[in-house]
């Protein structure tokens, strides 16, 4: 078997909500180990784009391959793709009725069919990695936002995904907690996991991204290396956007 060229391949994706055309001819190819940051004004379709990759959003036209597997309507295929893709949400979406540890071992035991003992070992490993192992028996609501988001990242890692998707992971956090989450994400990026991250943290984009993509009104407007992207924007829309977010 030859080495796969792309981990994610989105070809000409078009999506409508009723009559509203949310994604227009989106093409996105992500290589193994590549780190892509997507930014853009709200309502530009950036979240929708990454939510198509694990089929949380259906799309009407185009095709998506994840690790060479085509994302079809088939429920089994969708689940197969989802086990390869981890997703971190803006609002963490931890399960409040389960302890931190139970949150982490859920997917490995029920989806990965691992023994409980083995799952706990994996869970503790990742909890240590996000520096939160001492909170394993607490419940999500007892943790701060930053801690919850780190748990959510650890929860994804427990399923041993090939790709991590981040959907504005710091947007719901208090300012003093953004740093701890970005640190964990930076560490992950340095370990070479493939990641696609929707965020407005431009510092993070400059530091870790291989490529930055700017979306507006449902389409990809510009993509470039971080240096070129920030220092030499081509389109007027990106120039305006950068001006606005760098202003304050």
């Amino acid at each position, binding site marked *: 078997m030859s080495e796969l060229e792309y981990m994610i391949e989105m070809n000409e994706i078009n999506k409508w909500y009723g009559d509203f055309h949310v994604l227009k001819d989106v093409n996105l190819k992500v290589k193994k180990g590549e780190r892509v940051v997507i930014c853009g004004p709200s309502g530009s379709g950036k979240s929708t784009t990454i939510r198509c990759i*694990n089929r*949380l959003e259906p799309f009407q036209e185009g095709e998506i391959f994840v690790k060479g597997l085509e994302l079809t309507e088939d429920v089994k295929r969708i*689940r*197969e793709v*989802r*086990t390869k*893709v*981890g*997703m971190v*949400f803006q*609002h963490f*979406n*931890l*399960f*409040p*009725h*389960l302890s931190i540890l139970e949150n982490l071992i*859920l*997917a490995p035991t*029920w*989806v990965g069919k691992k023994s409980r003992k083995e799952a706990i070992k994996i869970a503790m490993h990742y909890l240590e990695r996000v520096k939160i192992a001492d909170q394993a028996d607490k*419940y999500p*609501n*007892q943790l701060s936002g930053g801690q919850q988001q780190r748990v959510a990242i650890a929860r994804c890692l427990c*399923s041993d995904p090939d790709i991590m998707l981040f959907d504005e992971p710091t947007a719901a956090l208090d300012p003093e907690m953004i740093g701890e989450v970005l640190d964990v994400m930076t560490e992950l990026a340095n370990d070479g996991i493939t990641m696609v991250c929707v965020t407005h943290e431009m510092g993070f984009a400059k530091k870790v991204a291989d490529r930055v993509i700017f979306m507006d009104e449902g389409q990809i407007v510009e993509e470039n290396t971080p240096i070129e992207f920030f220092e030499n924007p081509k389109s007027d829309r990106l120039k305006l956007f950068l001006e606005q977010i760098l202003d304050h």
Partner: protein
Amino acid sequence: MAIYKKLKTRPAPLGTKGIIYWIKENLFPSITSSVLTFLSFLLLYYTIPPLLDWMIFDATWSGTKEEITGSGARWIFIFEKFNQFIYGFYPEEQYWRPNLILAIFFIYVIGFKKTKSTLLRAFILISFPILSFLLLYGGFGLDVVPTTKWGGLLLTIVVASVGIIASFPIGILFALGRQSNMPIIKTISVIYIEFIRGVPLITLLFMSSVILPLFFPEGMDFDKLLRALIGITMFQSAYIAEVIRGGLQAIPKGQYEAADAMGLTYWQAMGLIILPQALKISIPNIVGTFISLFKDTTLILIIGLFDVLAMVTLTSTDAKWLGFETEGYVFVTMIYWIICFSMSKYAKSIEDRFNTNHR
């Protein structure tokens, strides 16, 4: 520019705690409140002592009917008819069978709480209804007691618990069905729920006792109690479905998405993530519908089954004991109240145990 020193904490001023402060603050804070407090005490003074006199101090607790002297309640009627209230027409020499079920129930409850083995718990949950039915109905060497002989509180509890236990899983399925993306399943669920909720329980009981037999072959005897149970379960499951749907709707979309994104199947996501949270939110309302069901079981009277209330009505027409229905109804009222109040207290304790918000 100003800099402020960190202040020390100090105790609350005198006269802001203690009993006298509490009374002043809560019972007599203003003129209107004081008047209301006074009126409430007056009301209690005129109602409670006479009630206690009737129920306890002037009541007749022992002796025969001819020896009644006091002006209070004549509880001897209750003692005389107690077995009929509890067991209905169940043969007296077989009373040990329902009593044994009650004993097994308590042993099982303790066993269920003490054990950690899932297998043993499953055994308890499955064997109890089977064992109860075998003991009550008979067979396997025990005399058969046909369901027409079941009555009184025994029947009330049988009908209520079968209704509660059977309607719960059915209600969950209809609630999930109503939320389903599959149009046919959704439509069937909506029609079922809205139809059942649109008719009174009495109608359903009539339907299941009169119309249901029409679907069965001629001459096939279809147990009257079973017909009532089917009607009650259909009724209750529609209400449970709506209560649980309310709980399902309160679960944030993110929980469904997180479960999906992990690769859980539909049933795993529902069983592990969504339902545990939805049921927890719904506990007060679920118990509320259970309590109404427990009280609604009195309606089985109209299809000729004698529950505890019907037994009281029946025994007070006994020529020997005419005019004793007041005591009977007070007794039944207390039975209903004790059971319903316990259910609501138990629900509160489950709710507290499942509370993982820890805010």
